[in-house]
């Protein structure tokens, strides 16, 4: 009974952990590089969800004093951290994506097993064996 109420009150944290784990699973087991980056993004956003949840407060207002609202305010610090984090995440994603495009152009594939077999071909056929 106690465990059940604990699970219910912590449901936000538990969902964030579950999203983190599924993102990690996609990142580690996928054979496709683009799919791996999508998994990485799921991991990132789950961490953001966790951080925003730590800043939330029951029946709290957003941290805006102008509205003339009294009462508890959500903590502004996690919001500021996540705000910078989101913009960094999109930079990281685009750098990873442009590297994927480069791999596609050089090696002709974005599937990990095919990239490995291109490497084996290179030993016999010399460099530049890709179709790029």
């Amino acid at each position: 009974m106690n465990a059940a109420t604990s699970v219910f009150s912590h449901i936000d944290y538990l969902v964030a952990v579950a999203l983190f784990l599924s993102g990690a699973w996609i990142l580690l087991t996928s054979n496709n590089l683009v799919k791996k980056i999508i998994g990485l993004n799921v991991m990132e956003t789950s961490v953001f969800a966790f951080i925003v949840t730590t800043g939330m407060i029951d029946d709290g207002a957003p941290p805006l004093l102008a509205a003339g609202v009294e009462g508890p305010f959500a903590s502004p610090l996690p919001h500021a951290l996540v705000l910078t984090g989101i913009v960094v995440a999109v930079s990281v994603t685009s750098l990873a994506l442009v590297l994927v495009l480069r791999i596609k152009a050089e090696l002709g594939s974005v599937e990990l097993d095919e990239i490995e077999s291109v490497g084996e071909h290179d030993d016999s056929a010399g460099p530049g064996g890709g179709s790029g």
Partner: protein
Amino acid sequence: MSPIELLDLVLLALLLTCAIGIARLKDLAACAILFSAYSFILCLVWAHRGAPDVAMTEAAVGAGITTVLFLTVISRVGRREK
């Protein structure tokens, strides 16, 4: 349980559904669109956690820009995952 708590639970369940869908689907374009939906649901969750700034950024970046970047790359590398 208040309606707003119920809505919260439904949104969290949808988030998990999107994540599982991304893991299961073999079509990369569908994965990118699911990620867009995932970001937008997350933005709704944050909007009623008292984080309007973060929700606004996530709606523009996660559901908009990141998805466009993914779809641009997928259109060049092929949408089928083997």
